[in-house]
């Protein structure tokens, strides 16, 4: 058994080799400072042919989204190359982060040893590949797993957070990707909602400014635009010189679709010419699909008016239920929860939505002649 050590100010990696497995014990804080170190360490290990990696997190005190992105990205990369990456012994806090982020479905967390049974709660949804099994996930299976990562509520801030994660994952996973961005059309204009760095943000901005480029075309036409070599590129004559001035040599823009309609683009930039192999183009497609799923979930495909109308309906229903609770509390002299329970039980017994019962009760107060129970106080509950 051999071992090697590398030290970082607040983050340490200690490697040991057990059979075919390379066990990396992570210590300290894996955050935006430690994540690049882990990434380059894993690159070096994988480059040496160590493709079955176990990350021992028992002494990791802190993990944030940047660290999580590296772990998820390397998991995908290793699965594609026939290897595996498995998490061992996360602390309860780190385990919860992995759990709540939705990555539990993608990252393999090793079954805890019997003595560590308290970690069993991490496994409500175990990954398809049991740890240690031959990892032969093809593109299709990977696509299925990625699709499961979506747990995105209808909230712009959270959606943007998820898109940033997609950007980080695509950059870590797609070979040749030096920079990644997501452009979305909001209020009729394209803008960059997530980008891996400032150069990439500038790259997108150059396209908006010149009114041309693969990102704009993918967003408008809903199909792929692949510029293999900007040196020989004849499309987009105003934009291409700006890209080359920033050192970009190839670009892959995939359309983002929501219910079949293009709403933006996932852009992958590379310093190299012909950077994207067939496999990388397929991966980019998976990420574009994943991003589209997030957008679909968030209802961004609907117009502002449709979204506003849906939210107004939700709020109106909520208000009617609260009013009905008020009526029952006053009429029957019961508490708030009991009033809710009464509504809910009626709904269950009659197989009708709770909101309809609530509406009936509110209406019965507004129009006393509607029913026999006319002694309900006709107060204003609004």
């Amino acid at each position, binding site marked *: 058994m051999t071992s090697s050590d590398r030290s970082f100010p607040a983050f340490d990696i200690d490697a040991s080799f057990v059979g075919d497995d390379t066990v990396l014990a992570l210590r300290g804080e894996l955050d935006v400072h430690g994540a690049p170190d882990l990434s380059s360490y894993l690159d070096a290990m994988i480059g040496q042919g160590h493709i079955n990696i176990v990350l021992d997190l028992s002494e990791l005190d802190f993990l944030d989204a940047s660290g999580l992105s590296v772990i998820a990205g390397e998991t995908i990369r290793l699965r594609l190359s026939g290897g595996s990456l498995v998490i061992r012994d996360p602390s309860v806090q780190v385990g*919860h982060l992995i*759990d*709540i982020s939705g990555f539990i479905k993608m990252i393999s967390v090793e079954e805890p040893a019997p003595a560590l049974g308290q970690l069993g*709660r991490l496994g*409500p*949804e175990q990954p398809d590949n049991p740890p240690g099994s031959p990892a032969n996930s093809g593109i299709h299976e990977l696509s299925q797993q990625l699709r499961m990562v*979506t*747990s*995105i*509520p*209808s*909230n712009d801030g*959270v959606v943007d957070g998820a898109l940033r994660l997609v950007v980080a994952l695509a950059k870590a996973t797609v070979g040749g990707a030096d920079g990644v961005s997501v452009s979305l059309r909001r209020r009729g204009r394209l803008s960059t909602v997530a980008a891996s760095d400032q150069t990439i943000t500038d790259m997108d901005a150059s396209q908006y400014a010149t009114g041309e480029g693969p990102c704009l075309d993918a967003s408008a036409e809903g199909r792929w635009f692949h510029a293999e070599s900007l040196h020989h590129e004849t499309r987009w004559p105003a934009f291409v010189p700006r890209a080359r001035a920033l050192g970009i040599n190839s670009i892959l823009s995939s359309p983002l679709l929501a219910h079949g309609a293009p709403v933006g683009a996932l852009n992958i930039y590379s310093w190299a010419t012909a950077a994207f192999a067939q496999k990388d183009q397929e991966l980019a497609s998976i990420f574009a699909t994943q991003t589209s799923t997030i957008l679909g*979930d*968030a209802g961004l495909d609907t117009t502002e008016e449709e979204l506003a109308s849906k939210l107004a309906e*939700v709020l109106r*229903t*909520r208000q009617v*239920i*609260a009013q009905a*609770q008020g009526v029952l509390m006053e009429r029957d002299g019961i508490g708030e*929860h009991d009033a*809710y*329970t009464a509504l*809910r*039980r009626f*709904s*269950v017994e009659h*197989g009708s*939505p*709770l*909101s309809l019962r609530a509406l009936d009760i509110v209406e019965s107060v507004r129009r006393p002649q509607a029913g026999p129970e006319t002694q309900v106080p006709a107060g204003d509950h609004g």
Partner: protein
Amino acid sequence: MADGLSDVLDVFRRDADLTHGELWLRYFELGGMSTHLELEAFLYGALRPTTHDHDVIVHALNERFSEMGGDHPVPYLEDEGMPEPI
């Protein structure tokens, strides 16, 4: 017990073919007061909802099952004699 029930809740959510976001919106529409992150934590068993919150989540799921042509398969804690939360 609560952890076990919560795990079951996420199984029902998947059976109901709802994303976490969609379930949260339905729960919110029915008067739920917790954030989407808290709801996810309830479903995964990382946080324990009050009996009332639990039953609002259950009702959101059951109404969804009704829409899909089923009955109300998810049991309510309150109807099983659990104490009311304060």
